[in-house]
């Protein structure tokens, strides 16, 4: 169900931004207005209207809440994953360079990370988000317009980099003292081969766990930014943005806030559990443990 947003365009009867203010639908044989003349929108109709307006409409504009939820989930997931990829790429490269070369390379990288780290993530996100949401981003030939979804992606990917680079650097510092690194050098391996051929395989399980956790964190940050208006820009929807619009009607239609919130919680939770399971599966030493337990099922683990 959490993956449903991936094929949103195949199941949705209408676009996420389409308004149905003046339309009427048939619910259980009864004609009802999507948005009544006094401005109140229709509540959840479940399967009453052949799947249309499953969760009702989202207020004055009369957009189908379920469709927006799907498309919003798409945005949220895309931002979560894309930002996590950026974070992971930057963190792995910086962590390996800093941890392997040490000395001044490490000092420069670590101090730069500390500067980013020194700002609260949310504050930095809001500052960058509002600045870029107004002006857009222009780096050389690369230009991103102000409403683009890439702005929150880049911001989130950037602000979380130190949180991932730091533990990886620590791990590399410990690994590089192992004898197998010396053995590789004695074979004639260059620094790049040592970093990516010897050290990186030992980091994979850590990276995968950090990666999935980072998707979860990114989605939370995206929600927070969108909620505050510094993330995804209307009319595009994301779960955070939906919560934000939902709060206006929190007394009359609390589901508009609760449902996207629940989606975020469920997705974050499943990503955490998934990351945990993946770590167990990828560790060659744990494979031995599983073989030893052959015939019994893998014990279920609690999400972090």
């Amino acid at each position, binding site marked *: 169900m959490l993956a449903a947003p991936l094929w949103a365009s195949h199941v949705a009867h209408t676009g996420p931004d389409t308004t149905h203010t003046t339309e009427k639908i048939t619910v259980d044989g009864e004609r009802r207005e999507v948005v009544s003349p006094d401005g109140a929108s229709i509540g959840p109709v479940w399967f009453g209207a052949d799947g249309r307006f499953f969760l009702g409409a989202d207020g004055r504009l009369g957009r189908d809440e379920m469709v927006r939820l799907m498309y919003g989930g798409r945005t949220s997931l895309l931002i979560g994953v894309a930002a996590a990829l950026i974070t992971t790429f930057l963190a792995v490269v910086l962590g390996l360079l800093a941890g392997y070369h040490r000395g001044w390379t490490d000092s420069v990288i670590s101090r730069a990370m500390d500067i980013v780290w020194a700002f609260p993530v949310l504050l930095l996100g809001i500052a960058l988000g509002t600045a870029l949401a107004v002006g857009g981003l222009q780096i050389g030939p690369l230009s991103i317009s102000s409403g683009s979804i890439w702005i929150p992606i880049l911001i989130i990917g950037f602000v979380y980099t130190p949180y991932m680079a730091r533990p990886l650097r620590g791990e590399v510092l410990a690994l590089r003292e192992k004898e197998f690194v010396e053995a590789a050098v004695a*074979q004639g391996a260059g620094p790049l081969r040592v970093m990516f051929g010897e050290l990186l395989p030992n980091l994979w399980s850590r990276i995968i766990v950090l990666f999935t956790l980072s998707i979860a964190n990114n989605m939370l940050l995206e929600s927070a930014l969108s909620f505050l208006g510094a993330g995804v820009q209307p009319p595009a929807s994301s779960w955070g943005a939906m919560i934000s619009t939902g709060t206006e009607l929190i007394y009359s239609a609390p589901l508009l806030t609760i449902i996207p919130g629940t989606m975020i919680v469920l997705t974050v939770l499943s990503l955490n559990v998934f990351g945990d399971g993946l770590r167990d599966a990828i560790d*060659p030493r744990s494979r031995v443990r599983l073989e030893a337990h052959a015939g019994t099922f893998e014990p279920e683990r609690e999400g972090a």
Partner: protein
Amino acid sequence: MSEPLLEVEGLVMHFPVKRGLLVDREVGRVRAVDDVSLTIGRGETLGLVGESGCGKSTLCRTVLQLLKPTSGSVRFEGREIAGLSRRQMRPLRREMQMIFQEPYASLNPRKRVGQIVGDPLRLQGAGSGAELRRRVGELLERVGLSPEHYERYPHEFSGGQQQRIGIARALAPSPKLIVADEPVSKLDVSIRAQIVNLLDDLQDEMGLTYLFVAHDIGVVRHVSDRIAVMHEGRIVEQGPADRVCEHPADPYTESLLAAVPVPDPRQARARRAGGRRPGS
């Protein structure tokens, strides 16, 4: 024996001890290797003994340029290698290989045996997939493992087998010199003899030259043609294995010999009483 394979002359390796608030100042030095000179002829085994912390491992790493020596010269086949950059050393790496003390730590836990043993071959740009695999299989067989072990991970093996993998890796580029840094000290006594004998057989087959390090003079005597005794970073005595063991010239060598356990209590008593090693 014409030209020696390896000549070490006046090799010094000092580690500075630094301390300071903002700028590190050198406050002292650890003289790990202090003016060491050695020569090893082709096909010869030089045993290096000494207590823990006397600089044996540092000497090994300095000889192989894994550590840059403070001063002194290391000549391999007459060519000066001390002070060569990592890049300049690369083509020479295939000629000199190392076997490590900790079999498990020296094998990358995330790589399969086939990759570990095949990597040195791949680094030399040797062979295609199938050819490489066949070569690795041969090497594994030669050290007493089976080619079926190709896809396994190091942790699936016992300590002795792991050391065999380490040996196979060292043999892969067909080196001339192998520096064995305490290859048996972390192994069970029952396995030691097997590994030592394997190294001996390989030497006969492939004409290898060993620098064999151990802290147990008994093991070293068994494998070495000549023995060098190291104490606090210096070589205190050097000579043919039997001469050094029968007639030690240095008091430190004597104390090392006295530390070799003797299985027979009567002999042990006699040795303590006489202060000399009884006929062995």
